């Protein structure tokens, strides 16, 4: 894919959180390496999936990209503008173009504000309209996400989980963004509601040419909605490829294990397929293992995996992997 096509470029991104000693001085005694040197690009108009298990750093990655966290090191550029060192007004201007949808629609909406106030907040903050004009825009946004504009003056508790997530989507669209980070937007919803929200996100993408970073642990949904998928393990991206490449010919042993662990709603397939069952739990990101981070659980571990960090390389056009044994 052409270089000019990338909307977001991330290179060598790191985000460490300090671990401090208890007491008055809170001396730093270590750090949690939530994101530890990752590089990738998000193309204009695509949905890039970011998958991995809890604690692998996928949410931190999303939040650091839109600068909810200041990166420890590395660069994030949005539309060829470097954002890592931006502050104040400059940052606010560019933030208008990027938004976030959170996992839990019960805690991401302020219970004391009406729906109208919640959705108009980005419009107020970014000075995109006032009075009647703003009111109209909010009604338009509600209609866009499939909610009755008459609900304007209700409060979040009057809505179901699926409806609340629609409200969160409407809010994220209020500032006309180009890029939306969707952080597990459907995991908190009931099974029969999930498809509604997935379809809504797809429709909106088509309509407005949105670019999504779709963070999830549900690999079935990711296969459905994403164009390309990146797999994260303990602060590193281990594999990135086109959706079909990744699901049909996964190269990294972690990706293989992860895919084989996904339950498939087909009892015949489920009872016959071969599974790779990983041993143990993922180690703590405050003290990651040396060499390849996956080596203590990897079925293919060789001696050099324990000491040398594998190189992030392109094994065929658009298929990236970090593993010695591929």
């Amino acid at each position, binding site marked *: 894919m052409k270089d000019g096509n990338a909307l977001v470029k991330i290179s060598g991104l790191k985000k460490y959180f300090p671990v401090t000693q208890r007491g008055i001085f809170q001396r730093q005694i270590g750090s949690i390496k939530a994101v530890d040197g990752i590089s990738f690009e998000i193309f204009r108009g695509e949905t890039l999936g970011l998958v991995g298990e809890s604690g692998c750093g996928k949410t931190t990655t999303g939040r650091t990209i839109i600068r909810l966290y200041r990166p420890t090191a590395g660069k994030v550029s949005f539309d060829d503008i470097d954002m890592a060192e931006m502050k104040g007004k400059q940052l606010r201007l560019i933030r208008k173009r990027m938004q976030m949808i959170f996992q839990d629609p019960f805690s991401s909406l302020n219970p004391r504000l009406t729906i109208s106030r919640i959705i108009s907040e980005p419009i107020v903050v970014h000075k995109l309209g006032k009075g009647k004009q703003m009111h109209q825009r909010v009604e338009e946004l509600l209609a866009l996400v499939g909610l009755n504009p008459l609900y304007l003056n209700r409060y979040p508790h009057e809505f179901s989980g699926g409806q609340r997530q629609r409200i969160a989507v409407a809010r994220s669209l209020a500032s006309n963004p180009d890029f939306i980070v969707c952080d597990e937007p459907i995991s908190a919803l*009931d099974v029969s*509601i999930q498809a509604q929200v*997935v379809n809504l996100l797809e429709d909106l993408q088509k309509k407005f040419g949105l670019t999504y970073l779709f963070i999830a642990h549900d690999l*079935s949904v990711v296969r459905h909605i994403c164009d390309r998928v990146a797999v994260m393990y303990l602060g590193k991206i281990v594999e990135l490829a086109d959706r079909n490449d990744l699901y049909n010919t996964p190269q990294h042993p972690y990706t293989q294990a992860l895919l*084989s662990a996904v339950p*498939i709603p087909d*009892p015949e397939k489920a009872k016959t397929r071969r599974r790779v069952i990983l041993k143990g739990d993922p180690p703590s990101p405050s003290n990651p293992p040396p060499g390849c981070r996956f080596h203590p659980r990897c079925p293919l571990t060789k001696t050099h995996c324990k000491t040398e960090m594998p190189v992030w390389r392109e094994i065929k056009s658009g298929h990236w992997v970090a593993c010695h044994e591929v």
Partner: protein
Amino acid sequence: MTIVESLLEIRNLVIEFDTPDGIIHAVNGVSFAIPKGQTLGIVGESGCGKSVTMLSVMRLIQQPPGRIVDGEIIYKDKDILSVEDSEIQKIRGAEIGMVFQDPLTSLDPLFTIGHQISEAQIHHLGVNREEAFKRSIELLELVGIPQAQERYNDYPHQFSGGMRQRVLIATALACSPSILIADEPTTALDVTIQAQILELIKKIQQQMGMSVVWITHDLGVVAELADRVVVMYAGQIVEEADVFQIFKRPQHPYTIALLRSLPRADHTSGERLESIPGAPPDGFQVPVGCAFLPRCAFAREICAIKGPELLSISADHKVACWVDIRTRNER
């Protein structure tokens, strides 16, 4: 079709809860049997009554605010709902074990895991500490805790989520129960850890030959594990069948819609997901007709007038729907 003996039978169970906003009708006339030595999957969305149904089997419904309005739960010729408290204590934990969703809150943080596994054995089996210790180590090894001897005296916070769930499974298995009830035990866990737990349960069931009741909202997990499936919606059973029937020839519009709305990890369809319109009811009102009616693609006039009963449509398949999906005619 082989007839499997049933171990426990739930008959016409009705459970309500009093809340400040009104009465919630959690379970509205549920009847099914737990087959011996098999895995029964109970599937449904949050609030459909699946957990409440199984909690009542353990007599763990707090009354008030809960109220068991009607029904019987027959286990070994006795009605669990009407026996003395002392009697139920002999069954709970000893003959029927339970594993809950959240492994952190189900273990007592103040006691070592060894103490918690031994407790049930000392209480129910009348063994002494030493015997209980020996057996607990065996159980910890069985559920795959490495260095079981050393970890016996560790506290819950020293274990990861997956390991805690293993400890809970060991606790539930401590008295060799004939029924193990698992209430979404893998929902809080990552997929690779979930795969480990599913393998473990399959292995243990083969070894011990107990019945397993697996409550979940994840149809993938059901396909993986269950022999038989009960699908619940709004406090009622809408379909019950063998696992292959449920996935290959679902007969209730809800089951059909649910299966169609699922994205799949094993192939790319490229099509839009077929979503189910609307949302599940909140349980404050018992609908006159069928509870799924407002979301149903097959609705007829009769559906609004009278709720369908759960009827056998073949030797091994029950469905509660006025419309025969195969012919699209009313039954």
